[in-house]
């Protein structure tokens, strides 16, 4: 059982190593088998852990396993240890299961690509890093995973590196997340400095005793951690990299930039929630960031023309919901929405990938259409994903998870009406842009010919994910309809209980009705604007003010422009005028001295024996002189 835990991250690592070193010699089918098989085995180990998890640890529900110690110096010790509790188990299950399906899908999607083996090597490395990140029992290992997924994200965004634009997108993603990582690293240093240990659990256990409620140190650490989370999860103000990250192959967008990596920030905050509980101000900050982000991204998603960018903005927006939920202390609801989101967003990306694949790399929504008949499997599965994303009442998983967030924001003391209104407005936007996409791609008249149909490796994962995107919500039903709480019970050992369970049922029903009405009216609005009366939309868009807003939203609220003006230009300016500053002098000084020393000392290398003997004798005389004088 304990070694099974180690096996989970180890299998993808092994796959990565084999594919890196022997990839070129393996036939494509074997390489694909290794790539998928390693993640599949990790998934099987993860699933077999569930059983043992419940039977062997009825109390406490967690396993902490230290495999070896890497370094030890004084009180500092860096271990290789894994920690499994319901939170990390959930993450592991989602990462390996969705990862496996996406790997299978990629077999078909990447079949004709030259870099097939490289692709699977990177993907395996990503899965390994992500698993290390969620299973790490100490900050150092967590950071290793954190940077590892960042690296893989960089490698995979720039996977088609021959196009300089892709390289630029990769660099942008790497550098922007680096801004957040810097803050997070400082936060981790403070944690280590304060507690003298790297072990996450002992830090979290000691935090409430060492720090008083609302103390400034807790606030500072929490904000620094939020910085890291905001960068990784593409939230305001570091959200700009994610839409550009769509330059990578679509399975990458599905796995890394929708289902798993971008939720690492959510995981980080959920994992360190005891620190956030000590700082209500930081939690409020998280909620505000989430709300603003979900609205901004929702508006931007409305007007995008690239199908993947719509999905990218919707990812930002959905993670905004998770941040909002974290900020009001709805921990379990956050993780529930994380899980449903992972399923339906992976599904939507893979569906979009199938469309792009079929239309020969056409990504523009306005050049698609009428695919309902030609790609029926893709259509129906995409519809399932869209229903879940827009949280169609009762029939989709997204409804149950989003409803839980809305209700928590409404009822928990940390939530307020402003946040709630934002969340409701976000739900309305989500319904519009989701069905705008569905109508433009699958309805109407065909504008591009279908050049190839998706094979079985691509459709089977779609169907499986579609089933999950509809049904996975049933493991947690609200009090108004069944009050069934499998997920919440599973999570309860990790998170403190929140107080919503008690009290009258009617407000909850009211919130559900309200959100249902809003979502259905969003759906109707999309139908009205994109199917029934497209000319109305065209008339609307021809007005200059609306046109300006459209352009503004299209460019993601002008953040790129703003950052270019505020940071990049001034930085480049300073770099130019400060190319040779005093600090450099120290290093170039060392280099100069070394070179001088080199020139000087090489004169001693004459190659003549008599000179060499002389040097030895001189040394001996020096030693003897020292001996005599002391």
């Amino acid at each position, binding site marked *: 059982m304990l070694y099974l835990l180690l096996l989970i991250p180890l299998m993808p690592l092994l796959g990565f190593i084999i594919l890196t*070193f022997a990839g070129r010699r393996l036939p494509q089918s074997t390489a694909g088998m290794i790539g998928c098989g390693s993640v599949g085995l990790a998934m099987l180990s993860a699933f077999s852990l569930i059983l043992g998890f419940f039977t062997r640890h009825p109390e406490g529900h967690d396993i902490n396993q230290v495999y*070896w*110690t*890497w*370094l*030890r*110096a*004084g009180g500092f010790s860096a271990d290789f240890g894994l920690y499994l509790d319901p939170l990390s188990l959930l993450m592991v299950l989602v990462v390996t299961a969705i990862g496996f399906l996406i790997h299978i899908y990629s077999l078909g999607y990447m079949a004709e690509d030259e870099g097939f083996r490289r692709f699977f090597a990177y993907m395996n490395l990503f899965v390994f890093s992500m698993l290390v990140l969620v299973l790490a029992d100490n900050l150092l290992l967590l950071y290793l995973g954190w940077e590892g997924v960042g690296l893989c994200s960089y490698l995979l965004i720039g996977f088609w590196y021959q196009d300089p634009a892709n390289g630029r997108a990769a660099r942008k993603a790497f550098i922007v997340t680096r801004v957040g990582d810097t803050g997070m690293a400082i936060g981790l240093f403070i944690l280590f400095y304060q507690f003298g240990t790297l072990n996450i659990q002992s830090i979290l256990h000691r935090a409430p005793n060492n720090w008083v409620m609302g103390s400034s140190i807790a606030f500072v650490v929490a904000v620094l951690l939020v910085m890291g989370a905001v960068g990784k999860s593409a939230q305001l103000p570091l959200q700009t990299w994610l839409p550009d990250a769509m330059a990578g192959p679509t399975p990458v967008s599905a796995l890394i930039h929708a289902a798993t990596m971008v939720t690492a920030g959510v995981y980080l905050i959920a994992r360190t929630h005891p620190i956030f509980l000590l700082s209500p101000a930081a939690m409020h900050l998280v909620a505000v960031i989430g709300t603003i982000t979900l609205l901004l991204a929702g508006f931007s998603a409305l007007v995008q023309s690239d199908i993947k960018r719509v999905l990218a903005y919707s990812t930002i927006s959905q993670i905004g919901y998770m941040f909002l939920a974290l900020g009001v202390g709805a921990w379990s609801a956050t993780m529930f929405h994380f899980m449903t989101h992972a399923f339906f967003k992976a599904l939507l990306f893979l569906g979009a990938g199938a469309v792009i694949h079929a239309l020969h790399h056409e990504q523009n929504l306005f050049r698609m259409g009428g695919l309902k008949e030609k790609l029926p499997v893709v259509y129906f599965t995409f519809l399932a994903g869209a229903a879940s994303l827009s949280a169609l009442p009762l029939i989709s998983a997204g409804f149950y998870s989003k409803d839980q967030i809305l209700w928590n924001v409404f009822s928990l003391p940390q939530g307020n009406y402003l946040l709630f209104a934002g969340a409701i407005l976000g739900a309305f936007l989500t319904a519009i842009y989701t069905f705008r996409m569905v109508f433009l791609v699958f309805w109407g008249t065909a504008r591009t010919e279908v050049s190839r149909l998706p094979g079985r490796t691509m459709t089977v994962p779609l169907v499986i994910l579609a089933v999950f995107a509809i049904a996975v919500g049933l493991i947690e039903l609200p009090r108004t309809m069944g009050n069934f709480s499998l997920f919440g019970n599973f999570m309860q050992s990790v998170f403190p209980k929140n107080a919503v369970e008690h009290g009258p049922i009617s407000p909850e029903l009211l919130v559900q009705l309200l959100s249902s009405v809003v979502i259905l009216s969003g759906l109707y609005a999309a139908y009205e604007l994109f199917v029934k009366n497209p000319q109305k939309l065209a008339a609307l868009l021809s007005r200059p003010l609306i046109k300006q807003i459209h352009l503004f939203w299209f460019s993601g609220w002008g953040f790129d422009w703003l950052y270019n003006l505020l940071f990049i230009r001034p930085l480049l300016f300073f770099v130019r005028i400060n190319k040779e500053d005093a600090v450099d002098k120290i290093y170039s000084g*060392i*280099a100069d001295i*070394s*070179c001088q*020393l*080199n020139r000087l*000392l*090489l004169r*001693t*290398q004459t*190659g003549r*024996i008599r*000179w*060499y*003997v002389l*040097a*030895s004798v*001189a*040394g*001996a005389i*020096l*030693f*003897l002189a*020292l*001996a005599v004088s*002391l």
Partner: protein
Amino acid sequence: MNTSELFSLIPLMMVGGGILILIPVAAWKRNFQLAFAISTTTIIFDLAFIFIKGSCIKVDRASMLFKTDACALFFIGFFAFLALGVLLISYEYLKNFPGNKEEFLILILLGTLGGMVLAASNHFASFFLGLEILSVSLYGLIAYFGRQPHLEAGVKYLILASASSAFLLFGVALNYAQCGRLIFSGYGLPLIFVGLFFKLALVPFHLWTADVYEGAPAPVTAFIASISKGAVGVFLLRYIAQGSMNSQLVWITIAIVAIASMFVGNACALLQNNIKRILAYSSIAHIGYMMVIIYLFKNYGDVGGIRLSSIMFFYLIIYTLTNLGTFGIITAYSRWNQEMASLDDYRGLYWKQPVSAMFFTIFLFSLAGMPLTAGFVGKFLIFSAGIWSQCWWLLLILVVNSVVGLYYYLRIILTMSQEAEGRLVPLPVRLPVPLLISLGLMLSAILYLGIRPDSLLHWIQYFSQSLYSR
């Protein structure tokens, strides 16, 4: 000498026995494959004996001359392992030599035996014998193929090593004059240091290193850099642990030598264009780092000594392993009549032979002390020992030197990744199997120890205690 004492000397005697079998084989019926098989089998049996029966050896002292404590046994086994590595890398190198090949193997085994004797010696007589067995085989090995650079290097080494041995003998004589015995003590120390520092190539006795490394055949350089340096290093530690080193002089001498070696080694390596010379200078710097550990012994008694000894041993082990690996790569592209040691020869290796370029990069990373290789752990341990002893000024010098050292390792890696226009000598299309085995062993050891150093450190801490049991 009773049976159990005799039993404890079997690891040494097995190597000697192997040599005794090889000599008549070479005289009677020359067959390179057979001789190679005999020599590798000898080494493997020796390793197996130590591995399986090593725990049965209960006597600490086989005779007046030898100690067979855990430390000696470990290093006998370790040198056998290194000798196996050297033998495996030299197979392809030797294969097409038209002259007699078998004696080369005999000399390798003989030199290894010398190193083993050094590691086990407990007396100046056995020490000197071991040292001379090692040196004399090296004279033969360096000049073995008889080409001009080989002969030049051989003669240089012969003359300079003999001169240093003379100093050393004089020191031993002084020791005898004072004690009336040849057991280790602090008398005659400056002169004994001259001899040892020459073998370790410390400033100012380092001048031979670059010339000999460059002139010697690549597998012989590998031998010098691993077994020869390693054996003298082990002996030095044993001598320091046993001898009374309370005079202030010793520490000042060691500090001067350590600092000078670090600076000279790194500075000289910077702009070299010959990889063997770069590695020669880098070895001077590395031994300088090890002398920093020796200097830290100053403030500590036995308890601190055990800790410092284990750090020194760890560094020595990973350093010799890495060196064997790097010279193994050079050997892969060299033959007895053609050395590929110029930096330019390696231009574009990444594009033509990615696997060996990868190996080389990892070995160089380990020498430079990059994390996840064993070299990093070695450096880390030195730093932690320095911080523990609060020896800040020496640490500062160490840090500066590590940074400077990074330059020339990265320079080699950079050269390998540059575009080549048909520069690479079109030697082997694929690396020979024995060489790959050897390189694979070294590489896996370095990576494993970089990730799990505790597995080896645990052992070293155990046998370091035996150094101090008087």
